[in-house]
């Protein structure tokens, strides 16, 4: 084993914190600056151990009479001398070090789709963040305009814009801040612009979808279609937003992230559906039907004749009969 070795200092998750190339022996490890490899840990002695090669070329880690000694990973006993081979791990006080040779075979490269690269780079651009903000402003203006065209009372456009835009900005800033904190912990980088862009885009899409779902509910005159559109769009938006954010604060693969985000938003939508379903069991004297009315040009589904309408309405009787005996 006459080759070069690498000493890797690991964190508690076995991720490499430091890596040292060693091509001549003996090598001293310890906390003091007289060592070849300095390990900054209070439980490591100033001169903790020495790594040397014997006559037959075998590498040994020798305890230099340290306070906490050396322990082979996976065992509990202190040892004076540990034989070093490729991937040997030993504990030095509170630190784990690993030895690897040049011949160590690294894992295959993880394939990364073009889409993933595109998304990540797109969100990292300041220009795109500005574009997202602009989109948000446009959506706000559209909402204010919609308020103008649908509301009968006079409007102050500037005030109305601020009423929509200001709370949105504050919500997105806080939202992006939380995600940035997570990114900072995981990747040691905040990616604030990326999180900010995703937040603004999500809010814009959400605003637009609420109106679209209302029109869909009316156009098809169907609570089922309306609910389907509402729940599926919620599912899609929540999945996309979480996936986007996790792209900047997770080390998992694309498929793993997608599955987790889909699972979470599915759970969220499921809970919302159950809550809405069970709230229907509470006694009410309200008439619960689709009260949306839009101009005739938005009608999509056909009209029933009188007989068909009342035949289909028969199920109402079955439902209330069932309720009356519950």
């Amino acid at each position: 084993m006459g080759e070069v070795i690498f000493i890797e200092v690991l964190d508690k998750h076995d991720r490499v914190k430091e890596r040292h190339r060693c091509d001549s022996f003996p090598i001293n490890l310890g906390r003091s600056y007289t060592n070849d490899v300095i390990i900054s840990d209070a439980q490591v002695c100033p001169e903790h151990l020495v790594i040397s090669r014997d006559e037959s070329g075998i590498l040994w880690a020798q305890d230099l009479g340290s306070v906490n000694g050396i322990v082979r990973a996976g065992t509990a006993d202190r040892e004076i001398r540990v034989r070093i081979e490729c991937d040997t791990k030993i504990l030095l006080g509170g630190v784990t070090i690993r030895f690897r040779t040049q011949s160590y075979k690294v894992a295959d490269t993880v394939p990364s789709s073009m889409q993933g690269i595109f998304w990540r780079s797109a969100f990292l651009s300041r220009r795109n963040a500005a574009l997202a903000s602009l989109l948000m402003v446009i959506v706000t203006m559209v909402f204010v305009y919609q308020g103008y065209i649908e509301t009968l009372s006079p409007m102050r456009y500037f005030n109305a814009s601020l009423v929509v835009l200001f709370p949105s900005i504050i919500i997105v800033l806080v939202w992006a801040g939380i995600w940035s904190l997570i990114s900072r912990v995981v990747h040691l980088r905040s990616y604030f612009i990326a999180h900010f862009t995703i937040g603004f885009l999500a809010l814009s899409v959400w605003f637009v979808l609420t109106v679209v779902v209302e029109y869909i509910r009316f156009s098809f005159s169907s609570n089922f279609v309306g609910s389907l559109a509402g729940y599926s769009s919620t599912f899609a938006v929540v999945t996309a937003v979480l996936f986007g954010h996790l792209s900047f604060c997770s080390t998992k693969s694309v498929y793993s992230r997608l599955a987790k985000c889909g699972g979470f938003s599915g759970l969220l939508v499921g809970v919302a559906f159950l809550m809405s379903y069970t709230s229907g069991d509470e006694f009410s004297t309200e008439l619960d039907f689709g009260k949306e009315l839009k101009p005739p040009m938005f009608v999509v589904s056909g009209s029933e004749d009188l007989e068909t309408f009342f035949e289909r309405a028969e199920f109402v009787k079955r439902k209330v009969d069932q309720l009356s005996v519950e």
Partner: protein
Amino acid sequence: MLKQISINLFHIAAVSTLLCLLLLQRQAAAERPTEDVFRQYKSQVVQVRVIERSSGSKSGIGSGFFVSKDAHVVTNYHVISELVNTPQSYRLEVILHDGKVLPAQLLDLDIVHDLALIIIEREVESWFELSPAQINRGSRIYSIGNPRDLGFHIVEGTFNGNIENSLYEKINFTGSLNPGMSGGPAITEDGAVIGVNVSTHGNQLSFLVPAAYAEELLRRTLARGGPIPIRFSEQARMQLLENQKDYVQRLLAADHEKVDLGDYSVPSSVGDSFRCWAQVEEEVDQQPYKSLSHFCSTQDNIYVSRRLLTGAVTFRHEYIESKEMNMFQFYTLYQAKLEQHSWNLSAKEEDVTSFRCFDDFLSISDGRFKAALCARAYRKLTGLYDVVFISAALNDSHAGLLSSLVMTGISFENAIKFTKDFLGGVKWAK
């Protein structure tokens, strides 16, 4: 000169005295019948009390009157309704004019006309004969009862014939009825029963149940010889079912009146059972639209319990038009108006279920409507429902017609029949 003045004064005094005597005599003659009527018939009137069994306290009071030697007492259903709805918790008592308290038993009821027949265990010396009496509008009649537990009172009033435009026959009595007098008799000077005190709208506008319904109730009870063989609540349910069948048949057979609202011709009063009103609104809250409303109602509810009134039919049309609003503004207004048409029919969970609705686009006489049919079932009165139909015309970007029809205490099948008939009367002129 002085002598002449004295003579004149003497003449004036003599004439004045004579006039006063004449007036007093006339007043005495007018008051005597009321006194006589009260004196003669008060022993035939009783107070009916519903007593809560566990505490022995009275839960409800009303009046009643003897209609047979065997001490059958006619009163209102609403006086004793608690006993019908929760018989295990209440019992009946009758207080005679002399203050004697006697237990009473319920024999039969007529929930539709708000009547009940009870009996006490004794014979009576005098009672009212329930035989048809014909009197003219404007005739003086007397109502006797025990208002607000203050003792027996007599109220003088005028017979004003049957009320018009109503599903259920009632007599208009121009006199002051007060709570506690319900179930008491309204009689002529000769003691002929004209009706049974039932309700008041204030300002001397009161209502009586025609005596013929009390007579029918007594007749069938005497023929049967005892209480009805089924639970009273079941009897009430069957009567309500029969009643709605009867009035829906009458409504379906009757002619519809029509009114024109904007581009639409819509059904108005059906037969002579409805009272209708119209209303016009323009530039409401400085908003540039015009609204024409037409509202019809039978206005008659059948009392089931303190919490539940039923048996009424109400409908409303509202035509809204605006040439100045854009179509989005107009439809925002139109939707708000539709929400106002979504009647909140208050009721308790113990009596009815929540509403369940079906909505879709509906085609009526070449016009397109967004329509919803909602229903809720009565929990104890099985087979009866409150049904609401609401429609909004979708034929124009700047005008629309909202129609709503509310039927309470009706079978689902009859509600559908009547709604179809109602919609057959909607025409779109364009």
